């Protein structure tokens, strides 16, 4: 079986996996990184949203082979030790989460958005496709604006 090395949340890792194995299952089933969630497996719900070289990806549709020698960040790698990332802190301040299942993906999508544009407009925020079945969208919007104001 081929083996792939990449940097995961700041740590060098090597896994043996089939080339077409989606990164999501490499993370969850081989590396036990369970923050990225399975919600659809086809890149639609975006509950697994993470970062590849700092850009948003849906690991459920990215083969592990595409990640070789690159840098992956999941929700687990966002905080700096006990200090939360400003977006995570905004999520706490706005009490965004309900069931919580989509929120790692929502946060990673928001971080990626704020990286692209530091003052996102409502139209920018509307383009976030991540599904929240609990319907926390208004608080997500508020938290993104809060994080952009502080960052």
């Amino acid at each position, binding site marked *: 079986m081929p083996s792939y090395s990449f940097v995961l949340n700041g740590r060098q890792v090597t896994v043996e996996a089939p080339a077409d194995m989606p990164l999501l299952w490499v993370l969850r089933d081989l590396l036990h990184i369970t923050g990225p969630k399975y*919600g659809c497996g086809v890149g639609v719900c975006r509950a697994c949203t993470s970062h590849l070289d700092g850009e948003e990806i849906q690991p459920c549709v990215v083969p592990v082979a595409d990640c070789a020698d690159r840098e992956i960040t999941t929700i687990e790698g966002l905080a700096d030790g006990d200090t939360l990332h400003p977006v995570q802190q905004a999520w706490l301040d706005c009490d965004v989460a309900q069931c919580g299942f989509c929120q790692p993906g929502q946060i990673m999508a928001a971080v990626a958005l704020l990286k692209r544009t530091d003052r996102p407009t409502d139209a920018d925020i509307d383009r976030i496709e991540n599904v929240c079945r609990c319907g926390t969208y208004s608080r997500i919007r508020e938290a993104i604006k809060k994080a952009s104001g502080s960052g």
Partner: protein
Amino acid sequence: MARQLSRRRFMVYSLAASTLTVAAPIGCDASSAEGAEAARRPSDVLVSGADEEMLVLEVTEANRVVVRLPRVEVGQGVTTAVAMMIAEELDARLADVDIPLADARTEGNQFTGGSSSVRSLYGPARELAAMARAKLVTAAARRWRLPAWTLRTWGTRVIAPDGRTATFGSLTASAARIDRPAVSSRPKPASRHRVIGRPTTRIDARDIVTGKATYAGDLTVAGAKPTVVARPPTLGGKVVAVDDRAARAMPGVHAVVKVAGGVAVVAETFHHAFQARDALRITWAPGPLASLSDAAIRSRLRAAVPVPAAPPRGSAQVEGEFEFAFVSHAPMEVLTAVADVRAGRAEIWFSSQTPMDARDTIASAVGLPSSKVRVHVLRGGGSFGRRLNHDAAIEAALISKAARRPVKLMWSRADDIRHGRMRPASHHRIRASHARGRVVAFTHMMASVSESYEGQRLSAQGGVTPAAVRAAAPLPSDSGLYNFGPVSEDSGSVELAIPLGAWRSVDSGTMRTAEEIVVDEVARSLGQDPVAFRRTTLRNKAVRAVLDKAAAAGDWGRTLPTGQAQGVAVHEEYGSCVACLVEIDATDPKNPRVTKVVMAADVGTAVNPSGLEAQLMGTAIDGISTVLQAGLHIDRGAVRESSYADFRYARQRHAPLHFEAHILPSRGEPGGAGELGVPAAAGAVANAYARATGTKPRRFPLDF
């Protein structure tokens, strides 16, 4: 609301333990919890072992306050609400309170549903903590040889007038030996509440935003292996023949077994499991509905609606027929269950609203006595009623038994959407009869799809019957909400082998939505404003108060450009009431956007206003989704949709740019809140759309 906080007390018991452990009974639901009331008596009744029917509080030597909760957390915030009740009465720091979910019990009330959790726990949880506090204070008084009344409690500590402090943890062993506390063990009056009623961030929020919150699929217990099931294209289709040679030969595949719902693959990872599933060659027999599609279901429903009596003589009629499509629960976390079934015992981990029933059903499915089955209840990634049923857990147990190994079964998203469960489709015929400017009679005749079972299929599907859900949950208030003269209601049903389930707000989500649309149409035909008409016809002043609040806060009647409009609706249920005001931009009628939602609710004492606002926000999105765009089609016995790409639950771009919730101040008993907002939100969205477009919305979702 108008109800006053009753003075009923719950008996509190002390459990024989080396640390302070107290217990209070909780009843079967809010009303039978009242039946458990007891005359005031000291908690010197010693019970050995934890009584299963009780809510048990323990103070550990590590200064943790632990209450094992016989409810499930699926996002509704029950663990936070209970932690707040406990922290309030104990004067403990919220961060020192742990609310783990209890394993399935053998007796008592372990039902999460019917918006009943806070109502059933508010009394017992506070009594429990107040008693624990009294004993801790008494223990400190003895240690310090001070009068107990001079001591106070704060921050999970007892504090003496001279500044000495002792943590609850350091007092718990001695407090366990106190029979009669020397200070009052009564809960605080509401006027002294410092935690209850204050908006509080969820206790699990940090775990969630750091990815640490653990759901069934995140477990590594028992060495359980990833498992998926190949399911038929049609609902209830059956395996005729399977060629699994290619699948078995694939790397990482541990087992392939036939189950009632299809063919299961157990593999090293979910990637291997999905790949092997797709390599199975299965011949399917079509399910029992293979010749049935939406059009036929709709006409059968229409035909099943009872015929109402003739309207009062001399009255004019406002009539409407309404159709609602099937709707998936589609919680973000697909059904997932870990099962380890051995020869003489079984252990299951999953998120369940009905774990006691699940244990019994699983036990009979795998042929074990219930006493040999352990069910661990996990937090769920959403539910909306879906986790009342335990389909996946039963299936996981049967696969584990057949494959002779622990399995972690996950339904794919397509499994979830294509094989149910779903809110039943329904058809409503509503008639408001008016004369001399007043409604003098109101009839609501409806029919909905009900689930038919073939023999043992009930247990195979993990069915909690709708009747069981209804027995535990209060029925929606019928249209006694308005002064509309005599109200007559009747319902018919069309039995189909479609997996159905109670969906947040159950029948009210369709019935009351349709009624609120008719109320608007009556107002229009009487030449009255929808808010003014409701104000003059609502019976309950609490409902008028929430309507007034929403109308004032939402600036009802403000001028909007053509193509935009406001809409309003109200609902009363679970001892609570709510009003919703919506603004919609339907300039493009095929692509409307709800731009603003203002809700006002009276739920009695709101334990956590932030949690209540979150619940209302969620129901607003449910209303937007189910009225405008999210539903399921049945095409020749199969569900057409298969993911969030075509089951179009709202995204950020469909959510209101502005949302606000107003919580009316109340010191009444808490009412239910988790489902309350659905009918008001759905009704307000439909009414706003009607006013913006000059149409009469009749078939939901509108864009389908």
